[in-house]
């Protein structure tokens, strides 16, 4: 017998994050490192805990090893609970055979039994793709007040950008009358954040109907939400204001990290009453050596800095050797930049090595044709040989031998 939970959160964490290319070779997108000591999934998980939601199902599918290990018992987020807590839910084999999660809605459908044990009133559906701090309890509060069947969190985006998003058109009272997926001529600038609150009774019915429709692609945005709207269910938009960023591309991941160094960006990870929790590697404080120069940067524990670091985000256990220069870059856990190497506008993934005197990326003003410029990426565990050059926008996913 499980204790009843008013709200169960279901976190869709099976995405490959194919637009992060080399960074998601061996791990699912929600496990991608972010912000010096976090992984993307720390944000929705911490938001859940801070909002008082104690039961979270994490739906995994693509490359789950790192993510499974990382979540573990849920202890870092205080989600190692007696019968609530965090539960990793991979696809499984049933009596009628085995199925991968066919779509976001199907993933929830396949885990209805998990949700049922808690007899919840509400189900909160989240994705593991965004960086933001949000109090879900306020959204649920508004969902109740509106007597809604479904509430979708929305954020105002620039009108010029609106055609990149799923746009919701609403009445003055906040009720939704139309979904506009990536509209060429948007009528509003309210973009869906991929955060939904459902009445569980209603959602269960629509998931079952959706599953029985062979033509459906079993996706929330494409199938379930439009079906609910067409049937005249009470659907409301919940306006969120604050920092929210999709980190689905190399550029947006890089930008979202750099945002942490910009005091004007409203994303402060040091606020004690809304902490973002993460699994701690247990390393000593970082060391800044004689002759090192560090400015405008974020540095995490266990790193050793002997070179120059400016406008960069340095994760734990990173080494920047003497004479090395790191600017406008992200060095993920265990990365090593050897003596005399230069890393600019780049993401160096976990345990990658940039050999002596090698160059990774360049500044936009130093690039001849600006359309050739972009953030360079070195995939996890890759070694860039001594004296090698990785051009801007370069993407390296296998070792490069030393230059002659």
């Amino acid at each position, binding site marked *: 017998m499980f204790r009843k939970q008013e709200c169960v959160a279901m976190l869709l964490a099976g995405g490959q994050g194919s637009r992060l290319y080399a960074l998601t070779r061996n791990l699912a997108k929600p496990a991608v490192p972010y912000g010096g000591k976090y992984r993307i999934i720390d944000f929705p998980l911490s938001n859940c805990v801070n909002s008082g939601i104690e039961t979270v199902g994490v739906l995994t599918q693509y490359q789950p090893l790192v993510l499974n290990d990382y979540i573990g018992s849920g202890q870092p987020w205080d989600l190692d609970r007696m019968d609530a807590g965090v539960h990793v839910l991979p696809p499984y084999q049933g009596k009628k055979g085995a199925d991968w999660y066919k779509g976001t809605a199907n993933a929830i459908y396949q885990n209805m039994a998990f949700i049922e044990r808690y007899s919840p009133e509400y189900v909160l559906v989240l994705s593991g793709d965004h960086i933001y701090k949000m109090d879900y309890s306020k959204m649920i509060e508004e969902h109740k007040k509106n007597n809604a069947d479904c509430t979708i969190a929305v954020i105002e985006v620039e009108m010029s950008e609106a055609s990149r998003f799923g746009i919701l058109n609403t009445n003055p009272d906040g009720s939704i009358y139309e979904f506009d997926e990536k509209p060429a001529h948007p009528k509003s600038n309210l973009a869906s954040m991929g955060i939904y609150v459902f009445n569980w009774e209603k959602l269960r019915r629509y998931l079952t109907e959706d599953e029985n429709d062979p033509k459906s692609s079993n996706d929330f945005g494409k199938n379930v939400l439009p079906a609910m709207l067409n049937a005249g269910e009470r659907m409301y938009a919940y306006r969120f204001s604050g920092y929210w960023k999709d980190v689905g591309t190399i550029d947006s991941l890089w930008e979202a990290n750099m945002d*942490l160094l910009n005091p004007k960006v409203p994303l402060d990870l040091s606020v004690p009453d809304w902490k973002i929790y993460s699994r701690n590697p*247990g390393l*000593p404080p970082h060391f800044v050596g004689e002759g090192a120069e560090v*400015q*405008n940067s974020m540095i995490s524990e266990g790193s050793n800095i002997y070179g120059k670091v400016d406008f960069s985000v340095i994760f734990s256990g990173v080494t920047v050797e003497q004479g090395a220069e790191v600017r406008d870059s992200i060095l993920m856990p265990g990365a090593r930049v050897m003596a005399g190497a230069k890393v600019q506008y780049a993401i160096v993934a976990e345990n990658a090595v940039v050999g002596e005197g090698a160059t990774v990326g360049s500044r936009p003003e130093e690039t001849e044709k600006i359309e050739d410029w972009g953030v360079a990426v070195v995939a996890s565990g890759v070694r860039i040989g001594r004296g090698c050059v990785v051009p801007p926008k370069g993407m390296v996913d296998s070792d490069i031998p030393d230059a002659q």
Partner: protein
Amino acid sequence: MRNNNVMGILFPNMHDEALSALTSSRPFGSVPFGGRYRLIDFTLSNLVNAGISKVGIVTQDNYQSLMDHIGSGKSWDLSRKNEGLYFLPPVAMSDELYAGRVASLTGIRPFFRNSKEEYVILSDCHVVGNIDYDKILDAHRESGADITVACKHGDVPRLNDNLLLWMQEDGRVNDIMLGNCPAGECDYGLGIYIMRKDFLIRMLDAAVSRNHMNFDRDILLRHIDDVKIYGYRVPEYTAVISSPGSFFRANMDLLKPEVRAALFPAQRPIYTKVRDAAPAVYGLHASVTNSLVADGCFIEGEVHNSIIFRDVRIARDTHIENSIVMQGAIICEKTSLNCAVLDKDVVIKASRNLSGAEGYPIFIDKGTVV
């Protein structure tokens, strides 16, 4: 592999008087060290890394800060169904607080009685080191000793209650001196003892019935001929905290890469309470060299040869040198610090200058506003 047969007993209050500036509101074991640790973290982690998962902590009257730090022992993987961590506060029946090791150990006899472990490791918390306790256990079993004392050869620490050992070639101790001995190099005990549990209980009973209450004097020295006492020279790096000066030096030693490598090897981590602070942020004017900086700091000033603990804020136009700044300090503009040790949550207001001398750092009490 789990070391089921060994239990650890820690004495976080031993030597409190040697570091009175930092132990007025906390036991020795919860004195902050090295940017994010407490002294007890080293001993606890050494036990856990040796697979020992039953640890008793013998506390005296001021154990709030220790309880707060250790909690259920989760951070050390000691929050367990089988065994794990036990706080052993003074029992109400005793007339006075545990005065020393013998009285404390006698007070926790029920704990021993309920334990099935064959061996006991007793350890104080004044030694910073990443020590392989498995090796001491091996040495103890091989030598056939009744009791093995971990020791180090070198200059004698400035403690009032040193245990100095003279050993034969095979490690058997044939002479012992106690107290504040003349300076010079010799083997001194590190407050770490290994023995069989039943042997310990037998010796305790015999000592208590004669009102012999000093462990080193009455259990070791008095029985040097009829008990096999062996010394084990710890090969790992150790720093004995025996005075304000040695506390300062042991912290500063962490600025040497070889000391950090010895204390924090990847295979034997030192665990501590996790606070989930964001990574440290360096501002536009930050200039930091040869320093250790923990998470949660925000630095805009100049910092050299210093240890900066978690959640410290250092404003611009500041100059901090040869100093230890503990958790939560706020250092305002136009200040300078040299050879200073700031306890937790100290505020240094704008335009203040504080300076100690090398070898004689000034200590600023917890929560002081200067």
